[in-house]
């Protein structure tokens, strides 16, 4: 009985290992927008710019826009932004990037919502959508272990990652890893107050809490310090959003004040484009720039930022 059970488990584990391997191959076959996948498959060891942030930074790598920026500026750019991620996750990504790569500059796209909730920070690590596209790497596992001990990241993230469960269980395993926003990149948004309200409610699952903000500003400060240690110049920007969206963000003025204080103290160049464009034709949804909006931003402001601040 016991021998049969052991054989049954052993065969099961062998099948599991096979499935894990096949799922890992699929991660490479279908990978694209996951930040850690980009690091694993980056062709160049050194880049001029690394971009970090949440979903507002992601259109910069939609549908060939990154290549367009590289052509226009003559600089190599690697966009490592991930949807719904705050400074803690961004720091995790940057640390992993710096294990094997170098960058001269860091463009950090600031999103206030990401500085208020563990949902976008500690809890984000355990999100199956991110884990299922993250290639297996001993360094990532080790770092996840460290983060779960030191930063209170959900230990289930490490368990999931190490067991490959989210990859094996990925229902989009055969589909390319393209963030849903990219499919809408060319479209023009029709403003809706209801959609804006529900989007903000989603971004702020808890009421803004100054203590949480302080904690995540500290995480951001640690990210800046890390970049400095690697001789990386840090530039921060806020992306344009419609005023209908911006004016409804809770405690935005307080956030701006606290962030400015930090950026000044760390001598980080900051460009606030939040109110740069208000026209709906520049957005594909409540708050993300479409191709027209991004092109406008790049031509009017961003190109100069990338060229002037080049280190």
């Amino acid at each position, binding site marked *: *009985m016991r021998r049969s059970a052991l054989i*049954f488990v052993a*065969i*099961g584990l062998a*099948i*599991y290992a096979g*499935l894990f391997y096949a799922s890992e191959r699929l991660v490479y076959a279908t990978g694209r927008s996951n930040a850690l996948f980009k690091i694993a498959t980056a062709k160049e060891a050194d880049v001029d710019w690394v971009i970090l942030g949440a979903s507002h930074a992601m259109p910069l790598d939609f549908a060939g826009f990154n290549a367009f920026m590289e052509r226009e500026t003559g600089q190599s750019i690697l966009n490592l932004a991930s949807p719904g991620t705050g400074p803690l996750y961004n720091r995790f990504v940057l640390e992993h990037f710096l294990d094997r790569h170098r960058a001269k500059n860091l463009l950090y796209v600031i999103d206030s919502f990401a500085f208020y909730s563990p949902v976008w920070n500690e809890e984000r690590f355990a999100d*199956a959508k991110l884990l299922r596209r993250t290639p297996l790497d001993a360094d990532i596992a080790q770092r996840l272990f460290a983060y779960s001990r030191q930063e209170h990241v959900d230990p*289930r993230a490490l*368990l999931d990652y190490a067991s490959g*469960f989210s990859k*094996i*269980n990925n*229902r989009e395993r055969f589909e390319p890893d393209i963030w849903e926003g990219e499919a809408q990149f060319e479209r023009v948004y029709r403003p809706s107050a209801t959609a804006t309200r529900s989007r903000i409610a989603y971004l702020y699952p808890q009421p803004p809490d100054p203590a949480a903000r302080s904690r995540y500003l500290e995480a951001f400060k640690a990210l800046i310090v890390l970049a400095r240690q690697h001789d990386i110049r840090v530039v921060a920007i806020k992306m344009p959003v419609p005023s209908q969206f911006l004016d409804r963000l809770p405690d935005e003025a307080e956030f701006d004040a606290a962030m400015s204080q930090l950026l000044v103290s760390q001598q980080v160049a900051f460009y606030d484009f939040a109110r740069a464009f208000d026209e709906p034709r520049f957005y594909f949804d409540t708050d993300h720039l479409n191709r027209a909006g991004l092109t406008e931003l790049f031509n009017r402001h961003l190109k100069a930022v990338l060229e002037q601040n080049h280190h």
Partner: protein
Amino acid sequence: MLFTSLEFFTFLPLALLVFSALPIRHRWVWLLLASYLFYGLWQPANLFYLGAVTGLVWACGRAMAGEGRGRTAWLTAGLVLVLGSLLALKFYDFAAGEVERLLSAIVGQPAIALPRIGTTAPAGYSFYAFSAASYLVDAYLRRLPDKAGAGHVALYLAFFPKILAGPIERATAFLPQIWNGLRAEPDRVVLALQLIGWGLFKKVVIADNLGPLVDRNFAIAAFAAPMELLISVYFFAFQIYCDFSGYTDIAIGISLLFGLSLLDNFRRPYLSLTTAEFWGQRWHISLAQWFRDYLYIPLGGSRVMAVRRYANVMIVFLVSGLWHAGLGYGVSWGFLVWGALNGLYQWVGLATRGFWQHVSRAMPRVGKTTPIHVLRVLLTFHLIAAAWVFFRAKTVGDAVLILQKIGAHLSELPTLIPYYPFTAEHLLGFGLIGLLLIVEVADERHPVAKRLAAAPVWLRWSIYYLAIFALLILGRWQAREFIYMQF
């Protein structure tokens, strides 16, 4: 802690380890502690309700152990408090809102503002409140020996595999198992694991893969295409079955690991030949038996005049509708309509029973042929599925709209089907339903557990591996709570 969560998969082996390390006579104490931990982790405040009901039931039970007229008063007090609190927690706020709305409609402006409780029944309350009520009645009728201690009663109500969604056990069957000592028989472990595996498959692979399409279309009933609505109605019938029976299978399987047998709660309900068979013998059997023993029979059951009998049947189904209200989809009038509609089916069944008996006597072989059998199963399924629409829709209006839209386009459906853009989600859903039906039909003819036991090892193991890896590959593990837990 959901049965499908990582926390539970950690909790269960630990609970089993401690359980098997303890002497048999102390095992029930550990099960009680583990059950309170399980329920408290869900929400600590839940323990207050559970503790209060347990204390009340035990105290009333002790008081009824004596003689004298006070026994009836204790029974009445116990039932009023247990069932009254259930009613209040489930319906008071809804009823207050409806009264305010009614008065506003009559007066033309907000007339009164009634106070609100502001809280709902804790998870599983409907289940253990009914278990508590059955304990009180059984104690009153002296069906229970006096040796039931407070701890045993507490375990009867709190036993973690069943606390959230049943089966609604009887103390008369549950307590003797504790008194006899809890032993996990090795030969039942395989059956237990099969039940847990099949229950998980029904929940995370079938129910949770059908759920998203159902949610989407029921949320936009006015805009959804009739074909989508029809598919959603079919999918929901199987979603709720797999969700609930999946939970029960897991609960029964886990209980077996702890040496406890729970009631059978489902017997392939969608293979019923009549709606009476569906409700009486195949769907949520422990609830049907509860209603039979504690409501229908006390009302007079079927040994009364025809009019009373019809009324008794309808009362049972209306109360069943009320009991189900709040189940994951909020409290609405739809549950009452659902109960009434099912009651109506029973009326039609009762009224035409004589006619059908006459037909089957006149043509004894025709009724037993496969086509007639299949037709009856299909008819029963569609009647039940149509009633589920009132159960699932947000409002009665939505339910009527869904049925109207499907009804108005029924004649076009045969021509639409070949051209309909079925998605992978549709195909997966139909494939899973097909697989479920194959297993159920096979099980109806000869129990699958026995077939597996008789099968060669390679085949048995292949089936186990297929099931396990289907769970890993197709299961929606991050998905949702069990529907019936949300009472």
